[in-house]
């Protein structure tokens, strides 16, 4: 693996983690009786930025290197399911996240300080943030499973 590809893989992981952490913070913030609106807006916007950057860095690594150099190794080994199930699922489920994140960010920015006066909407946004966080955590762990199978 070249230094650039190592950097891209590391950046993909770190940015993805920061994105998931940002939306976990949004989730926790929306569960509070009085939501820290400024923090939630910033967290959601940064969360989208991190996810998009994770998408770009991971995507370059995946499209230019993974197929030729990593997939074949995993498939030939005793953990072929790591690619056939976890990588295949992960690379497509990941595509959901930026859209979920954009909806959260746009809605939080539009609602602003009114969020606490709209409990029904606040609850649905909390659920959405929870779904995004859980999917993000699943994708992160799937990444670890895939990396561990490269032998």
């Amino acid at each position, binding site marked *: 693996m070249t230094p650039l590809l190592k950097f891209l893989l590391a950046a993909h992981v770190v940015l993805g983690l920061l994105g998931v952490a940002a939306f976990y913070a949004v989730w926790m913030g929306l569960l509070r009786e009085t939501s820290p609106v400024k923090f939630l807006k910033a967290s959601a916007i940064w969360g989208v930025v991190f996810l998009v950057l994770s998408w770009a860095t991971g995507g370059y690594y995946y499209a230019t290197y993974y197929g030729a150099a990593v997939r074949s190794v995993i498939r030939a080994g005793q953990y072929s399911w790591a690619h056939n199930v976890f990588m*295949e699922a992960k690379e497509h*489920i990941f595509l959901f996240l930026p*859209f*979920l994140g954009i909806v959260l960010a746009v809605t939080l920015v539009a609602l602003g300080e009114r969020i606490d006066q709209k409990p029904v*909407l606040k609850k*649905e*946004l909390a659920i959405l943030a929870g779904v995004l966080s859980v999917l993000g955590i699943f994708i992160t762990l799937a990444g670890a499973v895939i990396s561990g199978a490269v032998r």
Partner: protein
Amino acid sequence: MAATIAAICAIFFVTLITVLADLVPPLKDWLKAVFTHHWIGKGILSVALFALLFLVLEKTPRQAEEGRLAAMLRLLSWFAVLGTLVLFGFFLYEAFVK
């Protein structure tokens, strides 16, 4: 509201094209031929769909009623969860049953 509807459609599209592309090899080949990689193609098409729907729906005058928005947000959450289960289940099936 526009972003929510656009996101629902994008997630549905990603789930559908992923399953179809694996079941219909010419579709996967087409994606690869046009976009150099099937996954890149799915990403670009889903973003294009989201952007197009968002721009069109945003311009459409409608009453952004709180109850409707809440329902659409719930629907979006469901689509994300079901889409995940469909994709994970599909690849489990392809790996162990097929």
